[in-house]
């Protein structure tokens, strides 16, 4: 499993691993989707929207990317499933695809209020990247 939930009293803390940085962003998006929607069936994608984020360092880029994704889930009612993103310097850009939120299928999770720097750690490992992040709920 590329992401797992860790103990945290009030919020949702996740450890996420990936072989490269862009995959880490995608896995982080999947982790947040699991918080928002619980377990849900993957269906053919019907929605694609653009996504873009900048950050002074990799940690800030992760936080800003996930904040942007959270925004898209709320205003586009997008349940994200896959990512096509590229990186140029301190900026990532591309598209995120998924399906429209359906109360009967995607009500298994909890609202995320924000992506916090609290307890955030991002490390390069022999296998790629390991991120620990807290979703404020």
């Amino acid at each position, binding site marked *: 499993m590329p992401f797992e*939930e*860790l*103990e*945290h*009293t*009030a*919020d*949702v803390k996740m450890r996420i691993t990936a072989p490269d940085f862009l995959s880490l962003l995608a896995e982080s998006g999947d982790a947040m989707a699991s918080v*928002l*929607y*619980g377990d849900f069936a993957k269906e053919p994608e019907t929605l694609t929207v653009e996504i873009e984020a900048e950050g002074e360092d990799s940690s800030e880029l992760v936080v*800003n990317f996930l*904040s942007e994704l959270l*925004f898209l889930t*709320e*205003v586009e*009612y997008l349940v994200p499933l896959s990512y096509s993103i590229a990186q140029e310097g301190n900026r990532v850009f591309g598209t995120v695809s998924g399906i429209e*939120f359906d*109360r009967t299928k*995607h*009500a*298994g*999770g*909890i*609202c995320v*209020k*924000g*992506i*916090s*720097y*609290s307890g955030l750690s991002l490390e390069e490992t022999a296998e790629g990247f390991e991120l620990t992040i*807290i979703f*404020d*709920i």
Partner: protein
Amino acid sequence: MHEKIQRINETEWEIPKGFVENMRVSGRFFLSDLLAEGIEDGALTQLANVACLPGIINHSYGMPDIHWGYGFPIGGVAAFDETEGIISPGGVGFDINCGVRMITTPLTEADLTDKQGLIEELFEAVPTGVGAKSPIRLSQNDLTLMLEEGARHAVELGYGCAADVGRCEENGAMEGADISAVSKKARQRGVPQMGTLGSGNHFLELQTAEEILDAETAKTFGVKEGQLCIMIHCGSRGLGHQVCTDHLKVLEEAVKKYNIDLPDRQLACAPLDSPEGQAYFGGMAASANYAWANRQVITHIVREIFVKRFEIDYEEMPLIYDVAHNVAKWEEHEVDGVRKKVCVHRKGATRAFGPGRAEIPQEFRSAGQPVIIPGSMGTSSYLLAGTDGAMAQTFGSTCHGAGRVKSRSSAKKSLTGDAVAAELLKDGIYVRAPNPAAIAEEAPDVYKPSSEVVKTVSDAGISKIAVRLRPLGVIKG
């Protein structure tokens, strides 16, 4: 308890300067012996970190429901000097003006002949959980007016009665709201979520006023034994979350610009008189106003259902009070014998002004400000009154709820939502949520006992208990 912590009396403890480097003042927190057993070292460190912030006055305070949060601990209170002080989103939280309100009805528990049907009807009418869509079509102009005028504009649109406004802290609208500090993204999140409950610990609950603990205060507030009451707990939804996220980025830069030495990045802040600090204040105040409007719209939906179901008048369901428990506000307090304007941050803490303060509605002024403390879904909630003790000890502040002790993940591992709901039903409490996990994560066992938390603020003299309310039915977000 950590060895460096000093006990002042039965309920009050001190974190001395030096607990962490560069503390400008000491920390003070309120815990009974029972609550002290569960205190997290991380929360104490956060309380000490707050004591390092520029311009902090007297102490950094922790209420009995203290636990680890973002920046400030949840249950944290700090007042900052007008010229030397700072403002920090870490002292407010992502959910700006998360708060709670209480409404009374002319009904009693005996009138709830179809409690399940009522809860199910309320659940359908009040959008709840992830992906909830507003039951109203809010124009951009009305959104702007809600950001500026809060509950008052919701009432002008027909969502309530004029008396509601005066029963909200700040009359349902903080001064200083600045719509230019609310981004387009925040507005985009705000329009489709007006009148929605959210999730997590947010709830809509039916309660009975089971025990009157201070007859005179309860009478002043207009609450009678056996009366059916409604409690609503929610905040500024995605709009407030986006305002927090947007301004955190700016304030991270401001920390560097103003050379503020922080013990923790989560305490990103700016001087109160700086453009960055003023912009955050303006955006936060606008978000707080949105939250008051949000709770007002939900109140209206609930009242309409009660009018139809029970054939009672709308006006027979007065708002008792509405408190904000995630906010920073300008207030006047006595500091070293001098009345001063200070910026009080309350993060998971409730204003608890004592008798006589002009901010309290005239009809309640002799009793002190109503303070509403929700319990967890199986345990009692309380109506209290603010005290002179709170004015003297905590900048007029008290606790905000029960306070979590158990993580959501461990709650889900050890409990199932269906089992928790079945157990609560045995006690006559019908629970409805968008999914069973939401019930498991908010099970009564994951919180500190609300009775112990309010007993502690009462023993500490920072609030006076007036009424205990027992839950009858709950909608969890």
